[in-house]
């Protein structure tokens, strides 16, 4: 039986009068790759924000290895690596300066060695002294992956990471995600790309109108069936 890493219990999130997430109950197991689908405004990004402790729930409880969120230390956040459609990088600094800054924030040991390994993996080592301002969208996202993985997180959270990527950058991202999955990291990815999301995942989820309307292991559903379920769920 898989070990539960994070558990949402009847979680609600409201922003003013907007009810972004409604009574979401779900467990994320260690080593799972969960792809989360849903139309725009469904509550997917809110789900990720709650998951990585960026925002607290309005009601309900989120447990991390059976410990409630409010009992966790700040250091707990080092277990998350977040890759968003925003790069989280300072445009006037070079790639190296950006990564050194985040490495200090995450108290990473052997900073330069770690940065070198990761930059070579995303094929940006030669461009390490270039200002981020001059990077293309694909390069930014590859650097963003490096930033998110600097501290070797246990849970990798991705919010529409393939948005605007060229084929090369997309392939690198997929390769890295598969490596992380192979290393038993827990991966949660929000995506609009059905094929990439389905292919990579070990579990599939659909959020619509702030509710979790589908949550199933991939092994139990074919791609055609999932497509039908998705269309049915979002058109309802």
């Amino acid at each position, binding site marked *: 039986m898989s070990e539960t890493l994070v558990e949402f219990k009847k979680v609600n999130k409201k922003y003013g009068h907007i009810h972004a997430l409604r009574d979401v109950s779900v467990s994320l197991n260690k080593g799972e790759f969960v792809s989360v689908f849903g139309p725009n405004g469904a509550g997917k990004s809110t789900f990720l924000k709650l998951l990585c*402790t960026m925002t607290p729930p309005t009601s309900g409880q989120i447990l991390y290895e059976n410990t409630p969120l409010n009992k966790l230390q700040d250091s707990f*956040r080092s277990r998350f690596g*977040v890759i968003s459609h*925003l790069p989280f*990088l*300072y445009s*006037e*600094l070079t790639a190296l300066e950006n990564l050194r800054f985040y490495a200090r*924030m995450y108290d990473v040991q052997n900073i330069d060695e770690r940065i070198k390994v990761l930059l070579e993996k995303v094929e940006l080592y030669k461009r390490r002294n270039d200002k981020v301002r001059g990077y293309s969208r694909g390069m930014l996202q590859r650097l963003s992956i490096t930033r998110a993985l600097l501290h070797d997180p246990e849970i990798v959270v991705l919010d529409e990471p393939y948005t605007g990527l060229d084929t090369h950058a997309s392939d690198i991202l997929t390769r890295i995600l598969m490596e992380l999955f192979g290393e038993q990291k827990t991966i949660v990815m929000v995506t609009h790309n059905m094929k990439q999301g389905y292919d990579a995942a070990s579990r599939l989820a659909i959020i619509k109108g702030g509710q979790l309307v589908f949550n199933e292991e991939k092994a139990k559903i074919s791609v055609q069936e999932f497509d039908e379920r998705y269309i049915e769920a979002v058109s309802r």
Partner: protein
Amino acid sequence: MKYLNTISAIVRKDVLHELKSREIVVSMLLFSVLTVVVFSFIFEPGSQFKNEVVGGILWMSFVFAGILGLNKSMMSEVTGGNFSALLLAPVDRSAIFFGKAVSNFIFIAMVEIFTIPLFMVLYNVNIFAYGAMPVVIFFLGTYGFAILGTLFSIISVNTRTREVMLPLLLLPIIVPIILSSVQALNIYILGHDPADASKWLQLLAAFDAIFTVVVFAVFDFIVED
């Protein structure tokens, strides 16, 4: 130690960013110098009342230039979602705030270092005639301004009207800091007994301490949504 390391990492990053972009200090300095120069034209040579108001002019130039800089400083954090990334770091979130506040303090202090000599020449006043105590006034006043300014720039930066919102929120709250700073400085400009400045300095230090404690206590709640 980790707390101080976080503050130091943010300050180093901000200073490096500023050295490369030169967006904040240069624009603040231009605004501050222009204010001091333009207002210097309104006084006739030998004007009796000049010395009673020039302290206010100097602080006004710092406050308005500072507001300009605070907006720019926070914009570099929200562009590209960087502030979210800071909040995701496994550090005490108040350390992130104080890192930004120290950076802003350094930037405003840089502007003051260049503006004050020009001010002394243009207005023909020597604010250091009775010693270096005005340095303490500038230090405490700038610290209070940086603390409150950083807090309100974080609050206002995500609004559509951030340039208007920051002064609207900040200026009413910052009155005790500005008032104490101007009154204490006037004592040195007007050549009054420097001992009279102590009550204003105490008030200034008290407000700085109160605002620091309040921000330390509430910062987590401010950024959590």
